[in-house]
């Protein structure tokens, strides 16, 4: 898994910014007073009384979001190359 339970919230926000909105919908505020909260993803979930099963679900969904974002970025990159070629033609 790309995103695991031990990742700090600070790193999560930096590397996977889409997580902020996702976790916000789950009731976890990753950023308070403009700064990331401290601790790991697992701790943030436990703070909100998530069960181990719910934490697993969060991990699965975050990794799925990561894949979707990565695919979208790859697609955008390919499209950009094609458009650039057209311009070159």
């Amino acid at each position: 898994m790309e995103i695991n339970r031990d990742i700090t919230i600070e790193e999560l926000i930096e590397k996977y910014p889409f997580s902020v909105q996702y976790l916000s919908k789950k009731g976890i505020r990753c950023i308070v007073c403009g700064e990331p909260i401290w601790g790991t993803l697992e701790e943030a979930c436990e703070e909100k009384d998530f069960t181990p099963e719910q934490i697993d679900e969060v991990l699965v969904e975050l990794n799925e979001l990561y894949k979707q974002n990565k695919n979208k970025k790859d697609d955008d990159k390919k499209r950009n190359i094609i458009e650039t070629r057209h311009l070159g033609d």
Partner: protein
Amino acid sequence: MMTKKEILSKLGISEINKGVTTGTEWFDTEGSTTASLSPIDGNLIAEVKNGTLEDYEMIVNKAQEAFKVWRMTPAPVRAEVVRQIGLALREYKEPLGALVTLEMGKIYQEGLGEVQEMIDICDFAVGQARTMNGVNLQSERNKHRLTEQYQPLGIVGIVTSFNFPVAVWAWNSALAITAGDVVIWKPSSKTPLTALATMNIIRDVLKKHNVPEGVFNMIVAKSSVMGDNFLKDKRIDLVSLTGSTAVGKRAGQLVGKRLGKTILELGGNNAVIVTPNADMQLAVSSTVFGTVGTAGQRCTSTRRIIIHEDVYNEFVEKFVHAYESVKTKIGNPLDEKTLVGPLIDHFSVDLFKNAVEQVEAEGGKVLFGGQVLDGPGYESGNYVVPTIAEAQNHFKIVQEETFAPIVYLIKYTGDVENAIAINNDVPQGLSSAIFTRDLLEAETFLSGMGSDCGIANVNAGTSGAEIGGAFGGEKDTGGGRESGSDAWKAYMRRQTSTINYSHDLPLAQGIEFKF
């Protein structure tokens, strides 16, 4: 106005900078880099190499050694260093103020104000150096003297936030250094360059005065390097943390577990009460600064206005009118005509948008603003229109602190006690204010049955505290006090001594113990 290049050049900031120092020595590190992006345009200002766990260990060891020397340096001599730092800050006030603006986004006037706070606390600490006094007490025993004194504490860990990237360090350091402590500063990862610039400014002063390496330390580091381990570290005698209630609660628990000391300056949910006896124009003008100043990103920003029903419409009309004027002055904070700069980043913009949506979803009504600006000058996407919304105090979103320029209007009826009850009915307790010319209302607000906040002002807004008073709040705000008054006591260890200058051994409470 200086150019970006001039600002950085004057403050010794390069494209890539070292992020660890013990005062005058800087250390190259193996850590990742932190890119400092300006909220003004989203562009890179410069990068900083983060410290590692090894760097942290080295710094703590250095600080421990330095403390052995510094604690025995007389307080007025220590304060002379602080005085010289104040002079150096005066010299660099403009470039440092401009860098605060460039990196954090507050308007230039507020950037200068932030550096002025640093200067003010240095001056304050210099005076304090000769009055860090204990007391002599009457002993119950013959030829005995009972006395209290304050001793240096040790290593003070200072965690600062992006919204006051350098002033909070100064509040803590000026007092801690004068008290004989040594400091380790962890600046916000969002504003590391202002921290570097500050350390560059004080470097010559430290050199000239032979201040031992390890007295003034700074590490730019992620929370994986200076997070829980820092809080749990028994060698850190006092942790002074400015940040959110969430981080503060974590710090309180971890430091408390080892019975360490903390100063926690956390979130606020600050209210202004406007009674029927208020000077309406004064209330409006003062409150506008409280709500939109620093784009609503001060701990003391006004989040709620509690208005009596008899003057509600009048206040709202004037307040909205003032916002119409403010709206024309949103933009680049380095432009001296600007009154509202950007939010720190797009995450804060998202939280702003969520709050606007949520207040409406809970039954509130947006009277003004709520938009994110786009187009020329707003390309970073960090500029928002300050927002006024009618709401109820019990709304979930009103009970939370949103670090953005959103203010909630709440109507009250009857006596001032009803307004005070609303003021106090939130988890946080940092700052509060009342606008009234009625002595009874003002005194009730300041009485034991009044505001439960650490700061309670009359005919002055919730933000913009002077350094002379103790700064901090109650409940979820953390209970710590920084800056003026007797806040210095938190940086020292209190010691009670009994001195027997007789040849006898009388025990306290008249206890006989013969052997």
